[in-house]
């Protein structure tokens, strides 16, 4: 069926754009790296921009890619709504767009119609998985401190939302405090230090990313608590350092959210150019790490 999506010719090499949202944390850096490495391997030209955390700048970035007439655009949209109009502009200019790791508002731009597809994880599900694991492990009884990501960012909102869904079903699981740690190790540590004073009864720490979890572990240890024993620490992302901490028994459980999008993204583009049917949503098969499998999976963590 004709979806109205712009066509992409089959070529040996492409000039593709990658509009990154920011580069201020290891996860993003790994993602950019993966996109660049893979492009180099394929011999493609990559036009890379960085919105420095601003959706408005990201729109301007994408527009400059349109002006440069790239063959296709990979976009990691900073926000669900603000990036939708520019996707339509790209479509009008005949440039297919692939969204990675974050999606846009489906009422404004439709996958498979306005843009080719969304490749990524489901942030809400990630939060749910953490919640469910806790519910199972603690028999639905836990005193939880939640370290949120940057206030207002969509992974922070979604990872909280998914988690809250589970909490709502388990009256025994109590969130003692939920504060932002800005996705950063330093801030995560500081916030944890403080919250630990106010809520010494905590037995579970849920961090929205690895970095804050590692910060929280430092705070727990400084306070003489034993992460992994008296306090369970859980996080999302599954970077090598965090998985190592799972092996060491300090982190109890990590849901993977792999930033290595390069291979998948480009192979999807090639499939699209070849005229294959592309699903509107391609969810990464994200793993989970816990004491039983961490040691084995460690080498494959990003």
């Amino acid at each position, binding site marked *: 069926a004709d979806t109205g999506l712009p066509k992409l010719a089959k070529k040996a090499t492409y*000039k593709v*754009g990658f509009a*990154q949202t920011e*580069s201020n944390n290891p996860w993003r850096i790994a993602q950019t790296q993966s996109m*660049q490495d893979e492009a180099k391997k394929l011999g493609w*030209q*990559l*036009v*890379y*921009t*960085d919105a*420095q*955390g*601003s*959706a*408005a*700048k990201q*729109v*301007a*970035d994408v*527009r*400059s*890619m*349109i*002006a*440069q*007439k*790239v063959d296709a655009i990979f976009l990691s949209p900073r*926000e*669900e*709504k*603000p*990036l*939708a*109009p520019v996707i339509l502009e790209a479509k009008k200019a005949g440039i297919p767009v692939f969204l990675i790791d974050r999606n846009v*508002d489906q009422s*404004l731009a439709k996958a498979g119609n306005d843009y080719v597809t969304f490749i990524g994880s489901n942030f809400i599900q990630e939060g749910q998985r953490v919640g469910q694991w806790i519910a199972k492990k603690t028999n639905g009884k836990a005193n939880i401190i939640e370290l949120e990501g*940057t*206030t*207002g*960012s*969509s992974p*922070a*909102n979604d990872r909280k939302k998914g988690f809250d869904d589970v909490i709502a079903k388990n009256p025994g699981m109590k969130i003692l405090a939920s504060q932002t740690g800005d996705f950063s190790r330093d801030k995560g540590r500081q916030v944890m230090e403080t919250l630990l004073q106010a809520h010494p009864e905590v037995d579970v720490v849920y961090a929205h990313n690895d970095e804050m979890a590692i910060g929280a572990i430092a705070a727990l240890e400084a306070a003489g608590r034993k992460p992994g024993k008296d306090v369970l620490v859980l996080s999302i992302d599954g970077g090598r350092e965090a998985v190592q901490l799972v092996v060491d028994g300090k982190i109890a459980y990590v849901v993977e959210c792999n930033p290595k999008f390069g291979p998948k993204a480009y192979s999807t583009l090639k499939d699209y150019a070849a005229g294959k049917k592309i699903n509107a949503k391609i969810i990464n098969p994200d793993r989970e790490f816990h004491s039983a499998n961490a040691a084995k999976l460690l080498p494959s963590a990003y």
Partner: protein
Amino acid sequence: MTTMPSKTTDPGRIWKQLSQQGVLIALVLLMVFGGLRYEGFITEYNLESFLRYNAMFGLIALGMTFVIITGGIDLSVGSVVALASVVAAKVSGQGALLGFLIPVLVGAGVGAINAGLITRGRIAPFIVTLATLLGARGLALLVSGNQSVSAEYTGNFIQIGQGDFLGFPIPAWMMVVAFLIGIFVLSSTQFGRYTLSIGDNEDAARLMGLPVDRTKFWVYVLSGALSGMAGVVLASQFGAGQPTEGVGWELTAIAAVVVGGTLLTGGVGTVWGTFFGVLLLGMIFNVLNFENGKGVISLSVYWQSVIRGMFLLLVVILQSRLTRKSSTS
């Protein structure tokens, strides 16, 4: 020091004119460079989207110009943009008019709070607006519930940001008209004279019987209102109110004002200098994006920061050299 100012030709004037074109010359050179080097650079599409985006910076930098000329500073602009965009999105269902007016009033309100604390409370503008930078951001997050707020797509509200008028983006119109009014106000009205005089010597202005507090009040209200307007553009252009947007915009605006030849010590400045300052700083981003597309040297975003910093330094040094020459002759 030049030797003598002769009465007939008044070289001071000519120098002054030339110096303020420093920023203009830099802008033109950069555009010529871009046009020759990059395909698709000088195209209607690129220039229009460039203006559409930079109109927001233009609006806040315009208000900032007036504030800085009085010897003050307004650090709250970025947060006010975010707050206003959230408010705009919330009221966007009421149509373009209310969707425009209410956020502008909210911005003016924050400006009024700034002004009140500065004139009545006698607290340094830097501190007051540093506080409202935090406060307005908090309010934006609170009102929006920490999330982007969708704007009404069916009404005419989003036309403000996304529409064209006579083939030219509406936000760009708003910026240009605002700047024309700004130029007029600063050079040809009493309010403009008061603004300049207060920045030169506030005590003297007070003793000369000028309405110092009233003038400062309106200057901060103006800055707030223009930030509110930028918030409207943000919400309508991107279809959402964004509580986390606008971080660091105050610094971009300040840089644009200074690059445009306005002194941070107050008392000296031009509105049109700021206009070119905004375009120049925005153009750097645009050029860097295109340069990356060339693929000759793929600059990481980190190198881009370094280059932007150095470019800013270069322009500011050039500008200060030129202004100094003109003011000493």
